[in-house]
C-alpha cells in the first residue's frame, strides 16, 4: 500500500477556534491522519489539543477551516454526524453513567431494539462479542461505578467501537493508568490497528508517545508547530518543540531524620455503600519526609487522605498528629493543629470559583485573628495576604479581586497551593498535585513541595503519576484493595514497573520487607 499517493484518512486544514470569552484555542491548525496509523498529538496544557479533537468529533464547531475525510470535505455539526462518519472518541474525562452497567453504557444511544423494547439480551451478546474480538475484557453486567479505572476506559473504547468507529480518538487515555494497564492498553491499540482501525492518541508522557505512535503532531499555544515521524523523534526534541525551551525535572533532596508527626494506626474506613475501602492500615510520616501513596484509583488511598483531612468518618483504628489522636476533631480543628491539604480536584473541592482569589486565599483561615476579629473581616489584611501570595507563587491574574473562575487551570492549582502553604504546615496532605498541569508549573510545584518538606513538614503525597512519586518521595506505600501491600524506601533501584506490579496485586512483599520500610 502506498500511503504517499492516497489522501489522508482524516485531515483538518486551517482550523481556528475562539471560545466565547476570547480564548483562541486553535489558530490555523493542520493535522493529517493516515489510515492504519497511531497518530499522536502532544503539547502543553491549554495548547488546544482537546479542542481540536472536539472539533474532529463534532462537539465543537470550528470558526474557520475545513475537515476532509478521505479527501472529501465534511462537516460535523454534532457528535452524531461524526459517529456516522466512523469517528469515535474517548474523552479526557470519562463520559460514563456510574450506576449503569458496562453494557448499558456501551450501547447507550444506539441500543438494539425489538419493537419499542430495549433488547438487553442482544446488547449483552454484542458487547461480549465485541470485547472478545478486540481483546478488551470487561464484565458487561458490572455497574461501571464498581469498575477500576482501567476497565472503565475499556468500556469507553468499546463504546466507540460499538458505533462502528474506524477512527478512534483517545484524549489522554494513560493519565490515570498504571504501567501494567498502559501496557495492556497499548496491546489493545495494536490489535485495533491490526484490524484496520486508525487511532489518534494524546498524552503528556513522551516515552509513551514514542512507544505507541507512528507519527506525532506537536501543538503549542493553539498552533501546530510541526509533524514528525516517531522514528526521527527523541524525548528532548519533542519537549523542546512543545515548550520552546529546555526543561529538566530534577529535585534536590536533603536527607531527613525527623520525629513522627503523623501516625495512622490500624485504620478502617467504609464508603457510602458501607463497603470497607481501607482495612487495617498503619503508617507513619516523619517531620521532613515525603511519604508517597501509590495505587490504582479506587484502592483506598484517596479515602485515607480524606479521613486524615477530617472529611470522612472512621470505622476503626486511630489517627494521631504529634502523638495526639485527632479523631474527635473536625476539619477546622485539625487545620488548627498545623494540617494543610491540597485536594485532588481543585475545581470541585479546592476552590470556590464564584468567589474572588483574595477570598479563596483566606477560606481556610477564617477563624484566624489575622483576617477576622470579632467576626469582622479585615479586608485590608486579606488583600495584602493575597498580594503577597500572588507575588510569591507567581500566579498570573488581574488582581486579588479577580474571580477564581477566570484563572487558567495551572493558575487555579497555584492558588490552592499558595493558600495551603502560605504558612509552613506541620502535616501536608497532597493528592494529584500536578494532574493536568504542564511541565513548567509541574516543576514549580515539585520545588515548592520539596521546600516545604525541607522546612520540616511531614508530607503525605498521593499521585497517579508514578514518576512524580519516585521523584519526590522518601518512602512509598502501595495500596491494593484497601490495604498496604508493599512499602519501599526510595532509591535508584526502585522502578515504576516494581510499583506497578504491586499496585495490581501481582507481587507482594514479605512482612519483614514491609516492616523495614513502614517505620
Amino acid at each position: 500500500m502506498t500511503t504517499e499517493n492516497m489522501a489522508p484518512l482524516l485531515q483538518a486544514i486551517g482550523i481556528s477556534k475562539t471560545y466565547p470569552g476570547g480564548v483562541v484555542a486553535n489558530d490555523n491548525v493542520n493535522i493529517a491522519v493516515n489510515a492504519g496509523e497511531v497518530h499522536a498529538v502532544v503539547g502543553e496544557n491549554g495548547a488546544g489539543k482537546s479542542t481540536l479533537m472536539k472539533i474532529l468529533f463534532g462537539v465543537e464547531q470550528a470558526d474557520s477551516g475545513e475537515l476532509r475525510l478521505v479527501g472529501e470535505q465534511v462537516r460535523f455539526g454534532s457528535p452524531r454526524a461524526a459517529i456516522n462518519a466512523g469517528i469515535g472518541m474517548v474523552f479526557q474525562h470519562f463520559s460514563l453513567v456510574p450506576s449503569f452497567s458496562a453494557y448499558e453504557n456501551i450501547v447507550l444511544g444506539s441500543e438494539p431494539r425489538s419493537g419499542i423494547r430495549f433488547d438487553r439480551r442482544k446488547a449483552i451478546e454484542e458487547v461480549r462479542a465485541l470485547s472478545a474480538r478486540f481483546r478488551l475484557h470487561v464484565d458487561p453486567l458490572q455497574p461501571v461505578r464498581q469498575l477500576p479505572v482501567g476497565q472503565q476506559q475499556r468500556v469507553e473504547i468499546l463504546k466507540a467501537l460499538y458505533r462502528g468507529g474506524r477512527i478512534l480518538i483517545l484524549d489522554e487515555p494513560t493519565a490515570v493508568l498504571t504501567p501494567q494497564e498502559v501496557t495492556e492498553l497499548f496491546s489493545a491499540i495494536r490489535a485495533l490497528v491490526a484490524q484496520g482501525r486508525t487511532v489518534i492518541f494524546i498524552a503528556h508522557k513522551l516515552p509513551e508517545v514514542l512507544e505507541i505512535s507512528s507519527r506525532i503532531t506537536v501543538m503549542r499555544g493553539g498552533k501546530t508547530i510541526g509533524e514528525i515521524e516517531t522514528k526521527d523523534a527523541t524525548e528532548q526534541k519533542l519537549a523542546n518543540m512543545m515548550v520552546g525551551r529546555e526543561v529538566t525535572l530534577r529535585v534536590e533532596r536533603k536527607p531527613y531524620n525527623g520525629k513522627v508527626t503523623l501516625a495512622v494506626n490500624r485504620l478502617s474506613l467504609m464508603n457510602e455503600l458501607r463497603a470497607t475501602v481501607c482495612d487495617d492500615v498503619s503508617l507513619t510520616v516523619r517531620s521532613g519526609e515525603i511519604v508517597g501513596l501509590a495505587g490504582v484509583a479506587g484502592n483506598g488511598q484517596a479515602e485515607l487522605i480524606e479521613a486524615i483531612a477530617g472529611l470522612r468518618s472512621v470505622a476503626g483504628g486511630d489517627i494521631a498528629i504529634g502523638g495526639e489522636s485527632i479523631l474527635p476533631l473536625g476539619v477546622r480543628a485539625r487545620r488548627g493543629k498545623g494540617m494543610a491539604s491540597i485536594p485532588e480536584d481543585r475545581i470541585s473541592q479546592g476552590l470556590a470559583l464564584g468567589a474572588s482569589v483574595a477570598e479563596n486565599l483566606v477560606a481556610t483561615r477564617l477563624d484566624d485573628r489575622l483576617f477576622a476579629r470579632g467576626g469582622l473581616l479585615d479586608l485590608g489584611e486579606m488583600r495584602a495576604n493575597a498580594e503577597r501570595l500572588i507575588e510569591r507563587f507567581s500566579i498570573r491574574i488581574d488582581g486579588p479581586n479577580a474571580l477564581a473562575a477566570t484563572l487558567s487551570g495551572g493558575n487555579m492549582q497555584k492558588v490552592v497551593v499558595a493558600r495551603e502553604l502560605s504558612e509552613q504546615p506541620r502535616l501536608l496532605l497532597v493528592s494529584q498535585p500536578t494532574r493536568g498541569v504542564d511541565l513548567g508549573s509541574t516543576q514549580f510545584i515539585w520545588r515548592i513541595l520539596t521546600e516545604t518538606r525541607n522546612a520540616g513538614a511531614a508530607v503525605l503525597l498521593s499521585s497517579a503519576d508514578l514518576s512524580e512519586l519516585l521523584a519526590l518521595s522518601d518512602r512509598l506505600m502501595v495500596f491494593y484493595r484497601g490495604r498496604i501491600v508493599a512499602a519501599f524506601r526510595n532509591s535508584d533501584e526502585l522502578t515504576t514497573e516494581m510499583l506497578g506490579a504491586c499496585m495490581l496485586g501481582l507481587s507482594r512483599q514479605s512482612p519483614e520487607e514491609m516492616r523495614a520500610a513502614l517505620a
Partner: protein
Amino acid sequence: MSEAATTRRWAVLRRETGRALGAAIIALAVAFLIILFSSKTPLQAFATLTTAPITKVRTVGLWIDDVAKLTVAGLAYSLVFQARQFALGVQGQVYVGALAASYIALSPLGQTWCAIPLGIVCAMAGGALWGFLPGIAKARLGANEIVSSLMLNYVAIELANYLIRVDLTTPNSRLLSTAPFPSTAVFPALIPNTRIDIGLIFALTSVVAVWFALYRTSWGLKLRLVGHNSRFAQYAGIKEAFIIVSAMAASGALGGLLGAMFVEGRSFGKLAVSFEGNLAFEGLLIAIVARNRPLAVPVAALFYGYLRQGAQLMSIRTDVPSEIIVIVTAVIILLVASSYSVKPRAMLAAITRSSRPARTHVEAVK
C-alpha cells in the same frame, strides 16, 4: 482598589442594570399589549398603571409602605439564596412573626414603651425558629428545603388562623382579627396621614445589616463560600451545617421582622386572618432581579413596588384586573433569570442555536 477591578465592577453594574432595565421594558410592553387587548380604555388604564402612584400623597404612602415590606422580603430571600438554599418559607415566617408581635402587643407589655422593640425581637425570634426548622432538616438529613419550607408556610397560616379564632380575637367579637393594638404598639408615622412609618427605617437598617453581614463578616464570607461550592467549604473546615442553619434562621428572622412590620405597621395595627396578601412571595422576584445583592434589593423594590401599586390603582379605577401585574412579574423573572443579553441579535442567536445543558440548581446544591 486596583483600577482594573474598579472598571470591572462598573462594567458588572452597568450590565446588570442594563439587563434589569431591559427586562422591565419588555415586561411593560407585555403589560401594554395585554391592556390593549383587554381594556375598553387602554390608554387611560396604561396611564393609571404608570402614573397613579405618584399623583397623591396617600398613594405615595402606599407605594413606599410596599417598598419597605418588599425590601425586607427580598433581603430574606437573598440571604438564603446566597448560601444556595432554595428555602421559600418567608410567608410562613411572616405569619409566625406576626403572631409573636401580636401576643406582645395584646399583653400588658403592649401598653408600655417596650411594646415595639420587644414585639420586633419576639417576631424575629419566631421567624428565626420557622427558618431554623427546614434549615436543620436540610443540614442534618438533607431534607429538600424547597418542599419543607413551602409546607411550613401552610402550617403557619393554619396556625395563625387557629390562634386568631380561638385565642386572640376579643371575646364575643364578630371579627376574625384581633382588637386594634394599643397606640404604644403601633409604629409611629414618619409622614402623618400616610402609611409611611418607622417600618421604612427598619427596612433600610436591614439592608445595611444584611450587606454588612454578607460582605464584612467572616460568617458572611463563609456563607457565600458555602453557596459557591459546598464541597470546598467542607474541605476548608467551614461548618457547612451551621452556616446553612444559621442562614435560614437569619433569613427567618427577617421574615419575622416583616411579620411585625405588617401587624404593627400603620396599614393594619392589628392581626387579621390572611393579612399578608402574597407579598412575601413577591420578595422572590425582588431577590432575583437584585441578583441577591442586598444593596440592589431596595432599588428593585422601589421599581416593583411602583408597578404593584400602579396595577392596584388601575384595577380599582379601570376595567383591567390587577392580575396583569402578576403576569408581568412572571415575565420579568423569566427574562432576568435567563442568560440573554440586552443585545437583540445575541438573543436571537441564543434562540436559534442549540446550546449545552444549563446547570441546574439541583446539581449545584447537591
